[in-house]
């Protein structure tokens, strides 16, 4: 079993709750979540549908803010940030990989990889260099000027990975990243994740696929909006 590292966490959730009001009812999508994620962690967040996975992703991804509780990302509290600052944090500290790739259709491979760099204000020349380098790294060096609709699903997901890496984020969030792929493309993508983690990247995978649990050193299980299992909390 893996042990909790001694370093400062890159993400820390303290007593985070997320409530949704639906008419007269209040649904608690997340309850009393306390979580520490350390640099270099490779995590699967698993759980049944309705267990709070999506809400967790939205909170971790700074797309949504907790109703109660604090969220520290790279040492600073982001639970009370303005929309503007939150956008900045998303672009700089987080990389997203979605189930349906979510590439922008009118842009080419390189241009898609450049999008986060553009919002960070990186110069045109520099962002082009970074984008080409990352595209080559994920094996798409020969397809720089292709449009997403000219690529296979696996290739599109690799573009999305390159895009998530472009700003060198503290944490990469993958939401069912292999869900739309055949098993071969899926295992290719997972191999890339393994390599990234070996390079020291922090990866959080949100999935309902139990097979993933065996792949990642740390597993977090959510049930009814609560953390039901965390590898780090288990006795050796």
């Amino acid at each position, binding site marked *: 079993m893996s042990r909790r590292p001694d370093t400062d966490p890159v993400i820390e959730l303290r007593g985070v709750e997320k409530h949704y009001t639906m008419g007269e009812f209040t649904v608690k999508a997340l309850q009393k979540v306390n979580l520490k994620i350390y640099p270099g962690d490779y995590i699967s967040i698993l759980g049944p549908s309705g267990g709070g996975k999506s809400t967790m992703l*939205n909170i971790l*991804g700074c*797309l*949504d803010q907790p109703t109660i509780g604090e969220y520290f990302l790279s040492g600073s509290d982001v639970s009370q940030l303005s*929309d*503007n600052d939150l*956008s*900045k944090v*998303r*672009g*700089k500290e987080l990389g*997203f990989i*979605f189930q349906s790739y*979510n*590439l*922008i*259709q*009118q*842009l080419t491979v390189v241009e898609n990889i450049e*999008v*986060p760099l*553009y*919002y*960070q*204000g990186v*110069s*045109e020349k520099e962002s082009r260099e970074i984008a080409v380098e990352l595209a080559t790294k994920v094996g798409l060096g020969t397809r720089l000027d292709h449009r997403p609709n000219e690529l296979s699903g696996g290739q599109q997901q690799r573009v999305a990975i390159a*895009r998530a890496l472009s*700003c060198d984020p503290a944490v990469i969030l993958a939401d069912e990243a292999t869900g739309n792929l055949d098993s071969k493309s899926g295992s290719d993508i997972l191999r890339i994740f393994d390599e990234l983690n070996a390079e020291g990247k922090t990866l959080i995978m949100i999935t309902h696929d139990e097979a993933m649990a065996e792949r990642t050193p740390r597993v977090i299980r959510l049930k009814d909006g609560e953390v039901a299992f965390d590898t780090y909390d288990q006795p050796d």
Partner: protein
Amino acid sequence: MKVIDIINGASLFRLKRAVILGVKSLWMHKLRSMLTAMGIVFGVCSVIAMLAIGEGASYEAQQQIKDLGSQNVILESVKPTNNTTAGEQERSLILEYGLTYHDILQMQATVPGVEVTVPSREVKDFLWNRTNSVDGVVLGTVSWYPKMKNRDVLRGRFFTELEMASSAPVCVLTQSLARQLFPLDEPVGLTVRMRTSYFRVIGVIEDDPAVAAAAEGMEGTSQSSGEGMEMMVPMSTLKDHFGDVLFKYRSGSFEAVKVELHEVTVRIEDPDQVKPAAQAIQHILERNHKDVDYKMTVPLDLLQRAERTKQIFNIVLGSIAAISLLVGGIGIMNIMLATVTERTREIGIRRALGAKKKDIVTQFLIETVMLSGAGGLLGVALGIAIPVIITHFAGMKTVIEFWAPAMAFSISVMTGVLFGIYPAFRAADMNPVEALRHE
């Protein structure tokens, strides 16, 4: 989020990228973008074209009025139409009507601000250079005629006051008369005969601008008519040679007419006094002439009326322009709202990847401005082409004022901004979570 933030957010480099992105997004739906821009194209194009045509029409009218002189009051003798009083009179062989020296003296004495009066009197008959003849007019006038009428003496000189006093037999020909009468010679120094009198040519004066403009309109046919075929001699010379009563033997009938003055141009010193002075003159003439045998023209009045007409025209035009651009703007807004809905997911992705609200606003505003701007440019091009085509094929005068295309274009861009703001803010205000989930 303030507008200034949006501008600050769009540094030059980002602006360039945003423009490229905008082009790509618009290019994805070529037909839709083109049709949307069409609304603006026709709005802008019709404004410029209509303005050019209207401006051309009123320009010609105003030019003719200005040539008459805005400080002048022009009086002409007119043959009275219904001769009720003449019937009661003893039947005379001589028809007597028109303006008199008495009128002029009275005006000078009683109307304040009357500066100069230019009387003139005309005798119509054939003018001869040896065997070459032209049906023309001898105009008896004064030495300050060219200055008052804004007509340049092209060659030689005009006659002087001394020549007026001495009734010298000298004459000045209009340009077209000189060309007809002396097709091969330099007229200055030669002589022109009328009836039994000879006059030495001392100068050539330019044609009456109004007549010249009319002649230009129907090229070739104008030269045969007597219009503009004027020979100017001192007033006193005319009286000495042809007397007070003019006889006409034309077309078989005999007519004797006594007209002291055919035309009087009164110049008013102060432009502000033109209207009251014109009223005073009207009073004098009404008292002196029981029959209305004169016509009074106040160019300033005409000019003001023409300007008022143009103003009304411009207001009508402005409303049409506003309506057409409004329609175009609504078209743009409609399409942009559809685009925003259609691209909800893209907006979500961009927000997840670090785009701020103002980045989204900028992106969509740039798209609308490019749509309307491109439409505006195309409209300006068409709007300039249409008057040129009209002038070329229909011969109508059109004037494209430099500010018209500039104004129309900037209004089209402003329309884009105005009608783009709502869709852009709607895009920016979307919840990123929901936008990402949008199918």
